């Protein structure tokens, strides 16, 4: 174990995956990751093509081209950058290219904010990318390695983004076990795609599909996501065996036994919540690791003994409510209809989420359990004097 910056841990893990092509465009708070990788290259520690592109749109396009030719490709971005590569995101997944990226979570402009929330990757939830949200730096590091194995699996062949809270994880120093090369080499086989661009078998990539076929291509993506559900769990298990660290498959419970109130969420906020929950009775945590594919069945199973579920997230769909809140309720409908579901929006644009905020959420959840009245969906931590 070693005290390193989150970004360094992520860059280190990426290095260990032996990417052939790295292509990224700087944007706060993703920069340190890419800078560390650039330094590895400049120091001869990592042999790969590092392509310093002109934009995020190009970053993902370079990764796409590299992946199509059979190279293992990496990128990283956040918020504005992710939005700028939007079209390419859908394209990469539709082309079934297993590009892996670190999506550092940051708020969306306007107003511009370089600070953390999860509006950016949440907005990419339809894009056909697998999304793994991580809780701490170690998990971020480990998820990069797992990520390639999941994405490149023949059953899956989908791109994958590891979503890590900006600043909170990328700019924090804490003790991390950095993977050894030999460990990763043993765990992660080289990328050997079934189809790739080559002069020997000159395939055409990126054909268009007329109405008599398009829908089936989309369905195949859906099926791949279904298979990814299994693969993610498998890889988590294998990783656990190889590295001795396990974070759950699609979800992970914490203090769920007998919990009447379950705080359901993802990302770095879980650390603070655990701290709080340890001091509470009958309050558990359900952590969503894989947001896409969405763990429908697992969530139903994990919540079956709960009374109140408080979904906590750093995003919302303007004109509706928090996206995770929506998704969880939808997953339960038709199955478990008697829960009291509450949604809480916290920490937008870097608003710090304090233990007190979590306590407030627990308080309101308890009140809801006892039949008290509370809004179904609400913002926590607003500064009323500004409104």
């Amino acid at each position, binding site marked *: 174990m070693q005290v390193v910056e989150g970004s360094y841990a992520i860059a280190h893990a990426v290095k260990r995956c032996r990417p052939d092509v790295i292509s990224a465009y700087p944007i706060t708070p993703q920069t340190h990751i890419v800078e560390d990788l650039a330094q590895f290259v400049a120091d001869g520690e990592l042999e790969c093509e590092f392509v310093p592109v002109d934009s995020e749109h190009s970053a993902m396009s370079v990764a*796409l081209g590299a992946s199509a030719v059979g190279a293992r490709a990496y990128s990283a971005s956040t918020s504005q950058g992710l939005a700028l590569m939007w079209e390419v995101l859908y394209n990469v997944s539709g082309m079934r290219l297993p590009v892996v990226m670190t999506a550092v979570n940051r708020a969306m402009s306007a107003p511009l904010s370089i600070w953390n929330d999860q509006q950016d990757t949440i907005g990419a939830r339809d894009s056909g990318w697998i999304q793994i949200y991580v809780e701490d730096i170690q998990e971020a590091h480990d998820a990069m390695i797992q990520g390639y194995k999941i994405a490149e699996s023949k059953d899956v062949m989908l791109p994958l983004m590891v979503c890590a809270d900006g600043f909170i994880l990328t700019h924090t120093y804490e003790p991390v076990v950095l993977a050894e090369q030999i460990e990763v080499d043993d765990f992660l086989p080289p990328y050997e795609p079934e189809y790739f*661009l080559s*002069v020997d078998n*000159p395939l055409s990539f*990126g054909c*268009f599909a007329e109405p008599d076929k398009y829908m089936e291509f989309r369905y195949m993506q859906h099926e791949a996501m279904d298979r990814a559900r299994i693969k993610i769990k498998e890889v988590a298990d294998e990783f656990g065996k190889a590295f001795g660290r396990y974070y759950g498959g699609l979800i992970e419970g914490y203090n769920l036994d007998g919990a009447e109130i379950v705080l359901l969420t993802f990302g770095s906020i879980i650390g603070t919540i655990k701290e709080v929950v340890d001091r509470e009775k009958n309050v558990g945590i359900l952590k969503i690791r894989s947001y896409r594919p969405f763990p429908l069945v697992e969530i139903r199973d994990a919540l079956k003994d709960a009374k109140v579920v408080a979904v906590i997230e750093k995003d919302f769909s303007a004109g509706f409510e928090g996206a995770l809140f929506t998704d969880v309720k939808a997953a339960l409908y038709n199955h478990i209809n008697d829960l009291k579901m509450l949604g809480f929006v916290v920490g937008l644009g870097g608003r710090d989420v304090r233990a007190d905020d979590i306590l407030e959420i627990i308080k309101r959840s308890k009140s809801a359990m006892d039949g008290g009245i509370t809004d179904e969906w609400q913002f926590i931590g607003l500064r009323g004097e500004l409104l």
Partner: protein
Amino acid sequence: MKNLFASGHRACGGCGMAIAIKLILEATGENVFVVSPTGCLEIVSSPYPETSWRVPWIHSLFENAASVASGIEAGLKALGRKDEGKVLAIGGDGGTADIGMGALSGMFERGHDVTYICYDNEAYMNTGVQRSSMTPIGASATTTPAGKVSYGEIHPKKDLVSIAVAHGLGYVASASVGYAADLMDKVKKAVDHDGPSFIHLHSSCCTGWRHPSSKTVEVMRLAVLTGLWPLYEVVDGEVVNVKRLAKRLPVEDYLKTQGRFSHLFKTDEGAEVIRQIQAMADANAEQYGLDLDIEE
């Protein structure tokens, strides 16, 4: 012929671009990776499960061909497969000079070993003849139509060759589908050149330019012969191998072949625009020394 661009593609009969592609691949041979942005070329050549390509080919989006090509080049390098083939991007004027301009400029600047060929049919043909930054002054396009108070496009074409040269490219050329041997020669040079190279290729679209499909090659030649489309190379910043004209034709000879200019022949304003176009041809002649001095 190598027929690396297979028959059965869906281009309109008489499409200049279809001629261009077969000639380009004839010149490169089969050891080449081709990237195309969205556009007529992509649409006519790749309705799944059919493709007309017999070389490795990829289409991703409308605006990112240069970046995808960069990625392929980087990937081949990283995988030690650089000798497998050269990387070639072939895009329309819209995909190159408008929506793909940023990616192109980036690819140039990073010095990727990629040849980029822009087949310039002077509008967004795939979507129905909307203007691009390459639509010539006076042409009617569907987003800059001729109308009661408009004579069509009002901006001159972007000078892509000069822009490429300004990026410091070692090999840049203009070419025309009407001059097959010249085109193939230039493609070979461009592909052989190390680092980024660029060819700006004039390519008629009979549908969008509104001339009979049989006239494609003839019309292309008229563009050259009127001085509106000079043929030349720029090697390390120097203009060389200008195709000189024994007798430059008046621009009307070119304009009148095409429906997109027909409104110009109907009004005084149109006549004025034609004079303007003639002046542009004259300026080209001056700049590139097009006119063969009979005395010489």
